[in-house]
């Protein structure tokens, strides 16, 4: 074990005097924590709650249904990140849409989809844009590129979501409020710390911007614990090498030019005021839902499955406490989204902690 990690663990042992629950918001952190086995190294009393920060897990069923529908339209190619392929909608996932005749292309970047649209002018190229504030600037850039190049066959199915409204929603619930948050490092690299400063003050809850390596995570946790033990509740930055207080202005400007907030259903949680982003009116011509007059989807379809994702994502139960975990819900046949993504809390537990 690295000396730095050993030392941080030692510090944590000394720092914790009372039970604390710290939520890592970000699914990438959940994944790292589970694969490193970090929880087993934490002092007793210090508990991690795995938050709703996996954009795959929280993408509403109706949006997946729209993606499936679009992929099946003749002449349309739906481009998606690999993460979304196995997430169940109400009528199957994108892999089954593909097997059933849909055109689904895996892409690593929306900019690739723009290039594809340029080389296939007779194909309608729809990019399925999921992700938090980290990912949204690339979508904005893709739309700007496509418009500049005059690619009339490029459009976006916009599923972007915003983190701060979700934290607000969590803190407004009656149960399951964590004592502190690890704020998502890569989101903050774009947005900066302002929203979190506001939330920390309003809910009197410490927040520490945190990265993804073992030392980063431990430092973030330690900086939370220090505040909790000291009765402080401010924003601190444990990932300062990449996150400036003001974030990335250029990225923020691109996002603001293209998107505006809207209320959005988060899968497993429910309607979160201001929790999503839609294209601004000026970009309506590149909004796939409008261009293809997609059906509105059937909200709530996933709740029928019995999946307890809502309670897992709010930290009310651990994945292993869900009665379906590992039996009728596995990565091969997931009942809910958190079992699909490598980042989903249930999948992370399944892969690394079944023992």
């Amino acid at each position: 074990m690295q000396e730095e990690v050993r030392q941080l663990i030692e510090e944590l042992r000394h720092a914790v005097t009372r039970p604390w629950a710290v939520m890592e918001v970000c699914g990438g952190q959940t994944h790292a924590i589970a694969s490193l086995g970090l929880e087993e190294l934490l002092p007793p009393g210090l508990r991690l709650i795995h938050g709703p920060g996996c954009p795959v897990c929280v993408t509403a069923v109706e949006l997946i249904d729209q993606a499936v529908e679009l992929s099946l339209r003749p002449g349309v190619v739906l481009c998606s990140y690999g993460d979304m392929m196995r997430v169940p909608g109400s009528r199957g996932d994108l892999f089954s849409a593909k097997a059933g005749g849909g055109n689904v292309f895996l892409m690593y970047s929306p900019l690739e989809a723009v290039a594809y649209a340029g080389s296939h002018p007779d194909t309608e190229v729809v990019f399925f844009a999921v992700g938090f504030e980290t990912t949204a600037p690339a979508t904005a850039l893709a739309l700007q590129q496509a418009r500049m190049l005059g690619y009339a066959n490029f459009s976006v199915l916009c599923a972007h979501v915003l983190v701060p409204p979700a934290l607000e929603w969590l803190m407004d619930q009656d149960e399951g409020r964590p004592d502190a948050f690890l704020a998502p490092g890569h989101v903050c690299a774009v947005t900066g710390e302002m929203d979190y400063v506001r939330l920390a003050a309003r809910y009197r809850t410490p927040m520490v911007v945190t990265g993804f390596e073992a030392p980063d995570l431990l430092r973030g946790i330690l900086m939370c614990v220090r505040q909790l033990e000291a009765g402080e509740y401010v924003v601190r930055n444990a990932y300062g090498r990449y996150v400036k207080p003001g974030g990335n202005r250029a990225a923020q400007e691109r996002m603001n030019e293209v998107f505006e907030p809207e209320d959005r259903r988060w899968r497993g949680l429910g309607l979160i005021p201001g929790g999503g982003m839609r294209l601004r009116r000026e970009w309506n011509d590149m909004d796939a839902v409008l261009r293809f007059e997609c059906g509105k989807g059937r909200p709530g379809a996933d709740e029928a499955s019995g999946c307890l994702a809502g309670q897992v994502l709010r930290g009310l139960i651990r994945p292993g406490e869900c009665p379906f975990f590992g039996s009728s819900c596995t990565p091969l046949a997931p009942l809910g989204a958190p079992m699909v993504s490598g980042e989903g809390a249930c999948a992370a537990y399944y892969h690394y902690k079944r023992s």
Partner: protein
Amino acid sequence: MFECPVPEPVSDRIQMAHGGGGRLMNELIRSVFLSAFGCPSGGVQNDAAVLEIPPGRLAMTTDSFVVQPLEFPGGSIGSLAVHGTVNDLAMSGAEPLYLTAGFILEEGLPLEVLARVAQDMAAAARAAGVRIVTGDTKVVERGKGDGIYINTAGVGIVRHGLEISPSSVRPGDSVLLSGDLGRHGMTIMSLRAGLSFGDGLESDSAPLHESVAAVIRAGIPVHCLRDVTRGGLTATLSEIAESAGLTVKLNEMSIPVREDVRAACGLLGLDPLQVACEGRYLAVLPREHEEEALNLMRGCGVSAGACVIGRVEELGTAPLLMTGLLGVERVLTMPSGMQLPRIC
């Protein structure tokens, strides 16, 4: 709510992940292939099967099968994949023993079709007395396959000491054909061309090794054997004659073709002598054994219609000549590519 077609449920169709080497692939192998073929020696997951083998020379062959439609009267791509390889082994006078099965599946293939094809394959192997001992499954993206492609490779044991090859053919030899021509090819082509057969024409696909074994066991010094597949009789015999450096003379009237097969060929402008079979073979052997061989062949169901269709002579004006219905002799040339339906 949506007007577009919606996909079938996940579990009904082949998906890319079925070829990924993980749990989904193992489940496919267990539920479809092992349930059809039984557990191969050495367990599911061994890289290779380890087999006992009797003494003798080893015959080895391979063929890939790409037929459309996948299922047709008289069989499927599954039974065809067994018969094709069993027959290629039989044509060296080998006793077929073990087959491998390599599947290339197209994303979107209905699992029930795959299951039927695998069952067909298993039944054909059982009937032919061979074992499918190891296999492989790959999945390719939709639009990069055609439902199912199957490769089979086979090994058999050669217990006789004959040199069965065109180079053994001698002037004076008789050319025997095991039955009527063109059923398999016309069954397939008719399905595509919208033709129907009154009394249910079926593919002739069948294993030929027992018929061959009957002849060889009787001690008949067979010179050459060849199953009549792609390119039909014309291609098969042209190859033998060309390799042997001799001329084969056929008599058109002695070549059996069913009337309905002939009519379907007429309709599409095809030559029945160039249409593929999957259950017919040619045997070239010394004339003095012709009668005995014919009787032995006729004693097997698959070759009940055996007949003598020609003779081998010293090299004449062309490797393959045929005396037609008006008594005039003409050249038969190896087909160039494949036969296409034509209108003139």
